[in-house]
Structures are given as structure tokens and as C-alpha cells.
């Protein structure tokens, strides 16, 4: 196959199926007139196409459609398309549940910690409780750093 044949390789397939416009077909015809290798390829592929086409299109076995439809309807519990509310609940419900659990845990641990320290007045605010809990440690750290600087 020559270098110019490469250019026509894909066109030959379209040529066989008559999918080239007039100028494209004329161009391939001109090439075929001078190229024995491409003529041989076209002859081979035409022969094969004719042999395959002689079989005719495959037809489904008689009754296949009816059997397939009956089988599907009998076997399949159909997935109904969820309504907007159903889809919203599917997404919103787990999110709301997770948020509730997180809040409950935060409140529970916050209250426990607050009661343990004997501190009143912040039991309703877990964030304040956590802040209070960490303050002595922070103060101690600041004091030790300042002491080191003085040394």
C-alpha cells in the first residue's frame, strides 16, 4: 500500500456504502483507476459484504417479543419513579436525623461536663461550657510561656 493509499483507506469504506458526495466519489474513482492494491481491497470487501448480506438480517425467533414482555411483567416489581416529596424526604430525613443526634450528643456531653465542674449558669450553652473547660489550661500555658520569657 502506497502513501497515497493511506489517504484513501477510510474513504474506501464510505465509498462501499455510497456515503461520499459526488466529488469524493470521483476522487476515489480516480485513485482506483491507478491503484491496483486498492482495487483488490475493494473487490475483497465487496465479495465479503455480498456473502454476509446474502444471509439476510437476523429476525428474532417467533414469539420472542411476547415471551420477553410477559417475563418482564411477571418478574419485575417495577421501581416507581419517586415523587418530589419522596425524593426530598429521602435526602432531608437522614440529614435531619444526623443533625439531631449531633446536637443531642453535644448537649449531653456539655451538660455532663458542666455538672462535673459544679459550674452553674452555663448549662444551656454547650459552647460556653467547652470554652470554660479549656480556659484554665490556656491560662496555665500562657503563664508558663511568660515565665520562660522572664527567665
Amino acid at each position, binding site marked *: 500500500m502506497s502513501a497515497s493509499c493511506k489517504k484513501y483507506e477510510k474513504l474506501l469504506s464510505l465509498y462501499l456504502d455510497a456515503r461520499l458526495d459526488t466529488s469524493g466519489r470521483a476522487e476515489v474513482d480516480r485513485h482506483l483507476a491507478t491503484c491496483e492494491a486498492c482495487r483488490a481491497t475493494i473487490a475483497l470487501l465487496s465479495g465479503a459484504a455480498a456473502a454476509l448480506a446474502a444471509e439476510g438480517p437476523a429476525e*428474532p425467533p417467533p414469539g420472542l417479543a411476547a415471551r420477553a414482555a410477559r417475563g418482564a411483567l411477571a418478574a419485575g416489581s417495577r421501581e416507581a419513579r419517586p415523587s418530589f416529596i419522596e425524593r426530598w424526604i429521602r435526602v432531608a430525613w437522614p440529614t435531619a436525623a444526623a443533625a439531631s443526634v449531633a446536637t443531642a450528643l453535644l448537649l449531653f456531653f456539655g451538660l455532663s461536663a458542666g455538672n462535673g465542674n459544679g459550674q452553674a449558669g452555663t448549662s444551656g450553652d454547650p459552647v460556653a461550657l467547652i470554652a470554660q473547660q479549656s480556659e484554665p489550661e490556656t491560662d496555665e500555658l500562657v503563664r508558663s510561656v511568660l515565665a520562660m520569657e522572664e527567665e
Partner: protein
Amino acid sequence: MRSDDVDSHLEELTSRAQQGDPQAFTALVEETTAVAYRVALRTVGEPADAEDVVQEAYIRAWRSLSRLRDSGAVVGWICGIVRHVSLDRLRQRKRRRTEPFEETRAGELAEGLFGGPVPDPARAAEAAQTSALLHSLVGEIKEKYRVVLLLREVDGMTYEEIAEALSIPVGTVESRLHRARRQLAKKLQLVLRAQEKEAA
């Protein structure tokens, strides 16, 4: 390509089937079985397997029809399920595509294809043998190219119909067909050379 009337008829059947109408689904199956069967057969190769594949595909289609968003794309969607089930079947079977090509049979194939000296009384049998041999050569072509080639050459489907069935652009049909034919031409050239060697 199908007419607009047929397309809108399929769309309507699909919409009704999506609402759970069993009669519409049955009609939809009737309308699409031929192309579904061809795609299955060209992928798995055996008629009995293709039949099983089609039945399994419609079970899946009925179950998940509600997920199809574009009712106008129902043919490609069903054929997509068919392809999926077919490829599963091929993987399960781990079947080799073809038996190895025997060089001694090359001459028979070439004679059948190119009008060699085949005795008349045996012509029908020879033709069947030629077809089997040709299929064995086609069977050696990579699956995605082979399916397009067979849908085109044997089933006579247009590029647009193949594109729709396989959910690929027409340009991809062109290039796959070109590759399939290039491979087939090389194999046929080997056959011819073998024939020449035998004759010499």
C-alpha cells in the same frame, strides 16, 4: 432512520410504560425486539444466547424504566441494556471468539467468495461452509468493530440506526466500520495468499 411518526409513537409508549402501563410496555417490547435481538446476536454470536439476553434485558428495562429521562432515546437505552447483559454473558462464558483459522480451509473460502470451481450439486453446502468460514474470520475482529460490521453488512442497518442502537455518534460508526473492514481485508488477503500457495 425512523420516521418522526414512529419516533413519537415510541415516545408515547415509553411515557405510558413509565407510568406503569403494562400494555404500553408490551407494545414497546414488540416495537424494539428486532433491533435488540440483532444487537444481542451480533455481540454474543449464538441465537440461543441472544434470546436469553433479550429476555433478561427486558426484565431489567421494565424494572428501571422510571430512570429513563429521555423517552425519545428509548431504543438506544434498551440496546444499551442489551449490550450490558451481552457483555456480562460473554465474560461469564469466557468463550473464545473463534476457533483457530485453519490454513487448509483457506482455499475453500476463497473459492466460495470469488467464484472458484465449486461443483453445482454441492453449491448450497459450500455456500453454508463459506459463510461459516467468513464468520470465523469476522469473529477474530475486535468486538466493538465486529458488532458494527455485522449490523451493517448482515443486518443491513444504516449508519444512523447503528449509531442510535449503540448510542454512539455516526462518526464513530464510520471509523469502527473502517477499522473492521481494514482488518477483514487483511485477513482475506492472507486467505488469498494461502490459496495461491496451494495452487502452486
